């Protein structure tokens, strides 16, 4: 397949889109289709596997191979496919309920095994399909159908959970930032190993505006920290703020008061830095949220998979065993 031969449209299936008007899923779909076309992937070598949820309807809309499986199990299904088919480009599409609640175990084990797949977590901090219950990523005190007095549970720090599980690629983007999302999708796809990409996705119906701080252009400036390798960690209304280390502790400072070298320069391959970014900056209210590729490590030498077929002789020997006898 030549780059540029296919267009985003070629990756769209003939099925009617069945998300609510205003749902963030539309925008993500579009960017994924665009990126696949841009990168010159072929439709038949691409597979999308999902669980259950609004987000998990995704495969129906892709003119690729796809499976809309059962709730929480997409990662496990994709693992079997990955281990037996080295040739395919495999994507997992999942929701915060699908992958962080019922499917949490498969998620962490996928990351542990570091199989080469791209996992897109559409995080809308709610159960969309079942009409609005809180999820393990819902904000504290959120009022939902199952938390009429406000959600009493602590949310997962999504990136921290994946980092702890050993993820080799951790990134975040948001439905409303088409260009950023495209860029990060490309990097997600390029990484060899399990690539974890969290996409903040607005559920217009049951959790509208939960990411307004990051989707609204003016709020975004102060609340979102867009990371780029080799660049300092700056944000703010006029990009006037930066993050810097005070000993071990990250601190928000005025950018202009420091020279570039004194600021924290992003290096997605630095494990210690990633650990502080993910566990401290991203989890504390006084810091902005991270966007971009937060952490990336080279593929480890994990389980090798070289499927091939049994030879007849091997099988015959095995059937006979080492202690056979002949009856005449």
């Amino acid at each position: 397949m030549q780059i540029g031969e296919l267009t985003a449209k070629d990756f769209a299936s003939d099925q009617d889109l069945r998300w609510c008007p205003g749902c963030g899923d539309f925008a993500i779909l579009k960017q994924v289709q665009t990126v696949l076309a841009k990168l010159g992937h072929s439709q038949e070598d691409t597979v999308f596997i999902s669980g259950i949820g609004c987000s998990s309807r995704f495969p129906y809309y892709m003119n690729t191979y796809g499976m809309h499986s059962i709730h929480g199990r997409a990662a496990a299904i994709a693992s079997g496919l990955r281990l037996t088919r080295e040739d395919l480009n495999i994507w997992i599409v999942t929701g915060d309920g699908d992958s962080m609640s019922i499917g949490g175990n498969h998620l962490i084990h996928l990351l542990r095994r570091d199989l080469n797949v791209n996992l897109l977590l559409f995080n809308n901090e709610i159960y969309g399909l079942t009409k609005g219950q809180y999820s393990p990523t819902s904000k504290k005190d959120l009022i939902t159908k199952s938390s009429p007095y406000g959600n009493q549970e602590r949310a997962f720090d999504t990136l921290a959970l994946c980092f702890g599980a050993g993820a080799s690629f951790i990134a975040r983007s948001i439905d409303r930032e088409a260009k950023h999302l495209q860029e990060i999708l490309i990097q997600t796809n390029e990484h060899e190993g399990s690539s974890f990409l969290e996409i903040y996705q607005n559920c217009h119906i049951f959790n509208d505006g939960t990411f307004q701080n990051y989707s609204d252009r003016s709020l975004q400036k102060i609340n979102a920290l867009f990371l780029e390798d080799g660049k300092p960690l700056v944000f703010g209304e006029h990009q006037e703020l930066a993050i810097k280390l005070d000993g071990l502790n990250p601190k928000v400072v005025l950018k202009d008061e420091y020279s570039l070298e004194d600021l924290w320069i992003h290096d997605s391959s630095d494990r210690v830095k990633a650990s502080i970014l993910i566990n401290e900056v991203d989890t504390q209210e006084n810091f902005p949220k991270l966007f971009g590729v937060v952490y990336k490590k080279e593929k480890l030498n994990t389980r090798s998979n070289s499927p091939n077929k049994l030879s007849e002789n091997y099988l015959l020997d095995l059937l006979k065993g080492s202690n056979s006898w002949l009856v005449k």
Partner: protein
Amino acid sequence: MIAEVKDSISIKFAGDSGDGMQLTGTQFTDNTALYGNDFATFPNYPAEIRAPQGTIHGVSGFQIHFGSFEINTPGDEFDVLVAMNAAALKDSLKSLKKTGLLIVDIAGFDKKNLRLAAFDPEEDLLEESRFSDYHFIKIDISSLSKEALKEIDLDPKQKDRSKNMFVLGLLLWMYGRNLQSVEDFIETKFRKNPLLKEANLKVLRTGFYYGETAELQSYKKEIKAAKLEPGTYRNIMGNKATALGVMTAAFKANLNLFYASYPITPASDILHELAKHAKAGVQSFQAEDEIAAVCAAIGASFGGALGATGTSGPGMALKSEAINLALMLELPLLVIDVQRAGPSTGMPTKTEQSDLLFAMYGRNGESPIPIIAAHSPGNCFEAVYWACKIAIEHMTPVIFLSDGYLANGSEPWKVKDLKDLPEIQPVYLSAEDTQEEAFLPYKRNADLVRSWVQPGTKNKQHRIGGLEKELVSGNVSYSPENHQKMTDIRAEKVALIAKKLPEQTIMAGAKSGKVLVIGWGNTTGAIKSAVLELLKEAKEVAHAQINFIHPFPENLANILNSFDKILVPELNNGQLIKLLKVAFPNNKFYALNKIQGIPFKKSEIKDAILNLLG
């Protein structure tokens, strides 16, 4: 002195779990196999890795029944009991035949052992008069073994551990065998430890010559080789046969094999066996749990491999949701359930046949799935081969039922010739379908089977899932009429498989008569021996053992109709019989049930038949 010739002998090796009785048993079995006897074995051990030493709870036993004619069961009672300690004696003596031979290791009857086995530590348990019914041989095996090793630089514990070789040597001598197979085994096993190799060989030979020295010739028996159908034979255990059957099916279907599993007794050995062949083209995957295992297998099947998964009861419960997905996806999937005694964790090392209705109905919605049950260790090979064949050719999950007794039991098995196995032909897209513009993933052939089109196939991109599908197109559909049609098709598709199955045969007895005994799974041996004995007494009885439970073979109705009464023995509270009653309401079925974690005795079946014969 010439040894007495006997038709068959049944031996039970019983000792503490640390005494190596399983090894003694399997080595004796291999030797028996090479000698040419027919045989059946029954290993039985505690759930603990090392159960409390010296207690009844810690007893590990291995029973082998071998003979010069067809052997169907390990034997209700045994001719010879080797008891390595007091607990073993307590546990097993009740099943030693009167006038049988009892061999004990004196060292296992000291005060401590007596106390642990809840005997009075002060009494002389081994006093001859207590065992006057039996032939009784007391040997201080432990000290004889240690004596033999006094030159060898091993610690006392290690020396003590070789005493099972003494037993093995002695028993091999008793039945006129040679030591070759065991010596070969020891050579390989202790290749890297010459000291242990020497020790084991030495004690083995000490046992072998002890018989001579201690003038035990009168106990020698000769059991002539059995007259088996010509061919190459091997000793095989059920789990091994299962693993080989799956591999062979993948080979014949020209598919990659992907086996995903999570360890669980008694299914784990299938995983262990398949893992050994990683370099030869078998992929095995130890998943994080049973759900992941079955899901990974589904993923592999989606990609075009033969996806298989195996487990036991509690794991089946976890797989149920995903098996149902496979049913909707209409992809091949082999699900192996090596049944064990339930419910819940139950008695994990004990056998039972109580997952049949679970296999049949254990899913939400109307979800018909073919079920095939093996009925002997060797038959696991063919039965699972058929399970794979059906899964592949009919694009459906198939549940293969084995159980703890079949899994660990063994018998001589005639090595299959690949040519004699039925072909397996995956349903790939036909040339004409390939040409068609619009690809219809749920278009079906005459057997109502859709085609297996794998990612990577150009212009056939499609999406499948667990929502109800539209006829032919496979698109999501909520139409009432469509759901009715699809439900009917899924049922019909499984029903149609009956046309492809081998005919149900009669294992023993005539084609019609008064009583037919119908069994499935591990009851084969007990039923067959009971029926054969009654046939000798000219009773009108026959035996059929069914492999194919869902759907039933087409000719089963005819067979049933040829008998007045039908006895259905099962190691459960009556499961197959429920299916039979619904499927064949006009036949008279009688249940015989036992739920004790152990197989039927021949005598139990015989009594039940006699009862029905009136």
